[in-house]
């Protein structure tokens, strides 16, 4: 084990997997000498050179489209989109090409590629650089969606994503890049589709992912002082989703709060709620609550952005409203 930040853990996963498999390469805007807009790829260019760490023009369509072609031809591209907000530019390549080729071709193609991209608000980057868009990706059969909340998960899940034979959208959170934690050295692979209980508790289940797991954990601490033991469940991968783990936890606590950073309407929290309302209805003692951003673009001004974001206080209040 080694202390690493989330950003370092991501870099370490890429490094280890690139050393292991010569078919893995990275392309994206300013990922080379510059080291990436958030420094995540720093040092990789020096180690692997311009043949494998590839600076692209500002052409998201071609970044993802060419990754699809290279993957179909047998390579394992990691394609970075500088902000998840820019995926609107290359959506066709992701959802009509990468996601569907295998199925449309009757199972006779494999598209092993990873689209790595940072999401999230909290740095006053305003409406076009702060979004959480996982709900879109999870609505695309053929794509897997991964959103780690800790450095170790980031490493283990990115390694798994790189080794996976399907297109995987791997969403990093800008607010987590600096978070430190213990991370196994060398090869480290976690399974996709396995939730992690980040805190056990008996009174209520809080399901959340990415940055919001940290907020949920902070809320759980406060709640514990007030006698409410919250279980914090992090699905880690939204597709495939560990439904069993969620239902099992709700079976134990009989209450559910879902915390998502994305805007409320049609967010992934709604999917989780619907699954439980269908398959765990009899387990529930109380309404299912969602704590989410409001249905607005992300505002710029720090005061507004803080008001926009789901907060520890809002989570605490939502939980308490069920007792």
């Amino acid at each position, binding site marked *: 084990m080694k202390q690493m930040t989330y950003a370092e853990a991501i870099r370490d996963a890429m490094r280890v997997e690139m050393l292991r498999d010569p078919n893995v390469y990275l392309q994206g805007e300013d990922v080379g000498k510059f080291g990436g807009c958030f420094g995540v790829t720093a040092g990789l260019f020096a180690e692997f050179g311009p043949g494998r760490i590839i600076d692209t023009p500002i052409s998201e369509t071609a970044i993802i489209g060419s990754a699809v072609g290279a993957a179909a031809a047998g390579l394992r591209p990691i394609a970075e989109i500088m902000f998840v907000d820019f995926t609107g530019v290359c959506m*066709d390549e992701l959802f009509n090409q990468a996601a569907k080729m*295998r199925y*449309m*071709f009757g199972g006779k193609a494999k598209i092993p590629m990873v689209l790595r991209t940072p999401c999230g608000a909290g740095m006053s980057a305003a409406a076009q650089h702060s979004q959480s868009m996982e709900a879109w990706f999870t609505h695309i059969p053929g794509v897997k969606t991964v959103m780690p909340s800790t450095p170790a998960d980031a490493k283990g899940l990115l390694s798994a994503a790189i080794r996976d034979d399907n297109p995987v959208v791997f969403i990093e959170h800008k607010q987590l890049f600096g978070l430190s934690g213990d991370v196994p050295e060398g090869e480290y692979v976690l399974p996709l589709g396995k939730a992690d209980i980040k805190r056990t508790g008996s009174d209520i289940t809080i399901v959340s992912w990415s940055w919001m797991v940290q907020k949920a954990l902070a809320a759980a601490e406060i709640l514990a002082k007030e006698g409410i033991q919250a279980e914090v469940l992090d699905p880690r991968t939204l597709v495939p989703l560990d439904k069993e783990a969620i239902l099992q936890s709700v079976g134990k606590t009989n209450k559910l709060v879902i915390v998502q950073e994305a805007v409320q309407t049609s967010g992934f929290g709604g999917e989780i709620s619907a699954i439980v309302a269908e398959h765990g209805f009899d387990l529930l003692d109380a309404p299912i609550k969602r704590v989410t951003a409001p249905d607005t673009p992300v505002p710029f001004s720090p005061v507004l952005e803080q008001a926009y974001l789901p907060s520890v206080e809002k989570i605490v209040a939502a939980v308490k409203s069920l007792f």
Partner: protein
Amino acid sequence: MELTKEKLLGFYETMMTIRAFESKAVALFAENKLPGFVHLYLGEEAVATGVCANLGTKDYITSTHRGHGHLIAKGGKVDLMMAELFGKATGYCKGKGGSMHIADVDLGILGANGIVGAGLPIAVGAAFASKYRKSDAVAVCFFGDAASNRGTFHESLNMASIWNLPVVFVCENNMYGISLCQRDHMNICDISDRASSYGIPGITVDGNDVIAVFEAASEAIKRARRGDGPSLIECKTWRQRGHFEGDPAIYKDPAEQQSWLEKDPLPRLAKRLIELKYATQTELDQIQASAAEQIEAAVKYAESSPLPALTDVLTDVYAG
């Protein structure tokens, strides 16, 4: 590469196979036997044939919604294609894809595509893979005149150029999108002029002359193979049918249609073969007959094949 008798007769055979496949599709569609959209390649056979004659199995192509000709010219199997058009379990895609999504990755065919212009960056990626692996495989990307107005065209040619990738962009300029003719969708005459925006060679050829197509493609593909980067080839041609079967194409001037029918690539090659004494009319008729037979066999295969099982809906979404 010399244009030997074998080679030219091979062109004729391929073109005739495409012609027979597509003519049969016209009839089958009219009989309501083919579900969905069917876009036919009738009249454009020389392009796919002339280009793909320069390619081997390890080379890649990306195709379009109008893909049958590309697939056949790249070695695709007409029985599996026909079964796919019928939506049968034995089709190329087990009935899941249909005409617009036929692929044969083992043959380097990275798929027909229902999204206009989507094949361009995919071809760039295949060419990248080839260069990455230090293989001399080349990727060829087919796309239409109207597709050349999509952003993917621009991003792909630029990326291929700066990375000096082994890819040849083949624009099939049949002068129409669906109903919009070229002069209404762009302000230039020769799409090959767009190559200069990327610092790569661009050339326009008569797309109904298989030999001209072959020669231009041969040069561009050799160039790509030896590591000298991408090029753009524009082939001026004509689709003889509506955009899809069922489209009466009333937006086309009948006189223009007539004049292009007179430039049909098949009789043109036939004439040449006879002039060169590479074949007699009888021999050509034989080629035609055997193509028709092959297609009849494909139809028989398709018709006698089973439908997919309902549970197949759920398979092939994810690998592994």
